[in-house]
C-alpha cells in the first residue's frame, strides 16, 4: 500500500497545526462557515443544501405515488399533479442529481486525492455555492407561489406561450444554478491540470478523478447551451416573438434541440461521477487493482465526448428529419459501449478479489446491477421502432430512474458512507447501514420494475389518472416507493447520529490506497503537511514487494 514518503520542500513551511486540529474545529462561528474558502467546508455547505433539495423532490414524488394508488386521481387534480411532477423533476435534476457528487464528494476529495491544498480558485468555489443558493431560492419561491406545470423539460410552445404558471422565475433559478455548475467544472479542470502533486501523472490518478474530469468537460460545454435555451423561452414568454411558436413561423423543435444538447450530456454529468465512486469502492473492498485501468479511464472521456452526439434520441417522435433520427440512433448505440466496458472491468476486478461486504460495497454492487439494467433498456430506446412504441410511457420513466436512482443515488450513498469517516472522523453504524442498503435496493426494485411493464403495456407518463387495469402494478410501485422512503430516511438519521455518537475513526479505517487516506480524519485545513511526492500508481493493494514502480 503506497504511503507518502517524501514531500516537496517548501520555501516557507506551513504553520504547524495543533494535534487534533482539523478543518471542522479550525474556526468557529457562522462567519467562518459562510465566508470560508476551504473546499472541505464548502463541500459540507453543499451537502446540507442538496440534501434538503433531495427531500423536497422526494416529497413531490411521495405525493405523485400516493395519487397513483388509485386510477381516478383522487388525491390531487390534474393541474396540481402536473405541478408535482414538474417540481419533482426540476428539483431532482438540477438541484440534486447534477450537482451532488461533484459538489459534495468532488469538492471535498478532488484536491486531497491529487495532493493539493485546495482547488485552483477557492473563492470561485464559495461563489458557486452562493450562486447555487440564489438559483435554488428563485425556484423554490416559484414553487411556493404556485408552481410550474410544464414538466422539467419545458417543451415549447406550452412553456413559452400557453402555460399560466410561474415559468419565468423557475427558469431564472435554473439558469442561475447553471452558472454554479460551470464554475465548479472550471475549477475542477484547472485544478486537475495544474495542481497535481509531483509524480502524480495522469496514469496514476484515481479513477474518481478521471470521472470528475470527464464530468467537468460536460459541465463546461453543455450548461451554457441550456442557459441560452431557457433564456430564449423567457424572452419568448415576455415578447411573444415566435422563436418557438409555429403559428408565428417558429419551430418548437429548435427548443428541443438546444434543450437536449445540454440535457442528454447532463444525465452523464449525473452518472459519470457515480461510476468513478464505484471504481474506488470496488478496488478497496475487493482489495485488488482495477482491471483495465486505462480502459476505464478513457471510457470516462469517451462517455463525455459521445454523450454530446446523441441528444436527438429524445426527439424521435417529435418530428425531426428521418435521416437525422437514424444518425442519432446509431450514435446512441455507440455511447453504450464505454459504459459497458466499465461494467465488465468492475466485474473482472471483483473476480478473485478478497471481497468484504461492507455497506459501501453493497451500494456499489447495487449500482452495477441496476445501472446495467437501466443502460440496457436505454439500448432498447435507441432503436427507432421500439422508441416509437414506448416514448412518453412509464418505460422511459423506469429506464431513467434505474440509472439516476439505481445508479447515481446508490453510488452517492456508497461514496458518502465510504468517505464519511474521513469527512467527519466518525464511523457510521455498520448494521444499520447494511440494512439501509438492502431496504433501498428492495424498495427500488419494487418501485421501478413494475413501471417497465406499465410502460410497455401503454401507460403514459405525466397523467394523473390511468386505466383501472393498471392499478395492481401502480400499487406495487407506490408500495415500493414507501419502502424506498424508509431506506433514504434511515441514513439521514444514523449519519447525523454518528456525528455525536459514532465510533471515532482513524486516518484509514478501510486500509484503502489513495492520498486522502494519508491524512488524519477529519483532515486539517491544509490537507497535507506539505505537497506530497507520488511514486506509486493507484490501487496498489498487492503486497509492496510485488508492486512495480510505475514508470
Amino acid at each position, binding site marked *: 500500500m503506497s504511503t507518502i514518503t517524501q514531500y516537496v520542500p517548501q520555501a516557507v513551511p506551513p504553520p504547524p497545526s495543533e494535534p487534533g486540529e482539523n478543518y471542522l474545529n479550525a474556526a468557529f462561528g457562522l462567519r467562518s462557515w459562510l465566508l470560508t474558502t476551504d473546499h472541505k467546508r464548502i463541500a459540507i455547505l453543499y451537502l446540507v443544501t442538496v440534501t434538503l433539495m433531495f427531500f423536497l423532490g422526494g416529497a413531490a414524488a411521495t405525493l405523485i405515488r400516493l395519487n397513483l394508488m388509485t386510477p381516478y386521481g383522487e388525491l390531487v387534480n390534474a393541474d396540481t399533479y402536473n405541478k408535482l411532477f414538474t417540481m419533482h423533476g426540476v428539483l431532482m435534476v438540477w438541484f440534486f442529481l447534477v450537482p451532488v457528487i461533484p459538489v459534495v464528494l468532488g469538492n471535498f476529495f478532488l484536491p486531497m486525492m491529487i495532493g493539493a491544498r485546495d482547488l485552483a480558485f477557492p473563492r470561485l468555489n464559495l461563489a458557486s455555492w452562493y450562486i447555487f443558493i440564489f438559483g435554488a431560492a428563485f425556484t423554490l419561491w416559484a414553487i411556493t407561489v404556485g408552481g410550474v406545470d410544464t414538466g422539467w423539460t419545458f417543451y415549447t410552445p406550452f412553456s413559452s406561450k400557453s402555460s399560466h404558471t410561474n415559468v419565468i422565475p423557475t427558469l431564472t433559478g435554473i439558469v442561475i444554478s447553471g452558472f454554479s455548475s460551470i464554475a465548479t467544472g472550471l475549477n475542477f479542470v484547472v485544478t486537475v491540470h495544474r495542481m497535481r502533486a509531483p509524480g502524480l501523472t495522469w496514469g496514476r490518478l484515481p479513477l474518481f478523478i478521471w470521472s470528475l474530469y470527464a464530468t467537468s468537460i460536460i459541465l463546461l*460545454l453543455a450548461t451554457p447551451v441550456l442557459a441560452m435555451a431557457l433564456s430564449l423561452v423567457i424572452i419568448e414568454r415576455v415578447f411573444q416573438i415566435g422563436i418557438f411558436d409555429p403559428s408565428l413561423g417558429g419551430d418548437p423543435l429548435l427548443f428541443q*434541440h438546444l434543450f437536449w*444538447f445540454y440535457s442528454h450530456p447532463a444525465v452523464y454529468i449525473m452518472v459519470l461521477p457515480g461510476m468513478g465512486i464505484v471504481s474506488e469502492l470496488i478496488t478497496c473492498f475487493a482489495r485488488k487493482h482495477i482491471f483495465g485501468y486505462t480502459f476505464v479511464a478513457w471510457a470516462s472521456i469517451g462517455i463525455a465526448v459521445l454523450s454530446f452526439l446523441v*441528444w436527438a434520441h429524445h426527439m424521435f417522435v417529435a418530428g425531426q*428529419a428521418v435521416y*437525422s433520427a437514424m444518425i442519432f440512433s446509431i450514435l446512441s448505440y455507440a455511447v453504450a459501449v464505454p459504459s459497458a466496458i466499465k461494467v465488465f472491468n468492475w466485474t473482472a476486478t471483483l473476480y478473485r478479489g478478497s471481497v468484504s461486504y461492507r455497506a459501501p460495497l453493497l451500494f456499489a454492487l447495487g449500482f452495477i446491477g441496476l445501472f446495467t439494467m437501466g443502460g440496457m433498456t436505454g439500448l432498447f430506446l435507441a432503436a427507432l421502432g421500439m422508441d416509437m412504441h414506448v416514448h412518453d410511457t412509464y418505460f422511459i420513466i423506469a429506464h431513467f430512474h434505474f440509472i439516476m436512482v439505481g445508479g447515481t443515488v446508490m453510488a452517492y450513498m456508497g461514496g458518502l458512507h465510504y468517505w464519511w469517516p474521513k469527512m467527519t472522523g466518525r464511523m457510521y453504524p455498520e448494521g444499520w447501514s447494511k440494512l439501509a442498503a438492502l431496504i433501498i435496493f428492495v424498495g427500488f426494485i419494487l418501485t421501478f420494475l413494475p413501471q417497465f411493464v406499465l410502460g410497455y403495456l401503454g401507460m403514459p407518463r405525466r397523467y394523473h389518472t390511468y386505466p383501472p387495469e393498471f392499478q395492481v402494478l401502480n400499487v406495487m410501485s407506490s408500495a415500493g416507493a414507501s419502502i424506498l422512503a424508509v431506506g433514504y430516511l434511515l441514513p439521514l438519521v444514523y449519519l447525523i447520529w454518528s456525528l455525536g455518537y459514532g465510533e471515532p475513526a482513524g486516518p484509514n479505517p478501510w486500509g484503502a490506497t489513495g492520498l486522502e487516506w494519508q491524512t488524519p480524519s477529519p483532515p486539517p485545513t491544509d490537507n497535507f503537511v506539505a505537497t506530497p511526492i507520488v511514486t506509486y500508481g493507484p490501487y496498489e493493494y498487492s503486497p509492496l514487494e510485488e508492486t512495480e514502480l510505475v514508470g
Partner: protein
Amino acid sequence: MSERVTQPPTYYAVFAGLIALTVLTVGLSLVDLGEWHTVVGLGIAIAKALLVVLFFMHLLHSDTMTWIAAGTGLFWLGIMLVLTLSDYLTRWVLSY
C-alpha cells in the same frame, strides 16, 4: 508558463491586417455576390478571428493545453451546428 513577450510591431502588423480585412468585407458587401455573401463574410471573419486569437491572445506561443482549450469550444460549437442542421437541412429531402 512565462511565454515570450510579443513586440509592438507584430501587434501593429496584425492590426493593419484586421483593418484591411474589415475594409474587404465591407467592400465586398457592395458587390453582388448573390448567395455567396454569407460564405465570403464568414471566411473573412474566420481570418480576422484567427489573427486576433493567434496574436492578440498569444495562442501561437501558448502551450498545448491552451490550444486544446481554445479548440474544444470551437469543436463543440461545430458539433451543435452540424448535428442540429442535419435535422433542419434534411427535413424535406424525404417527403412521404
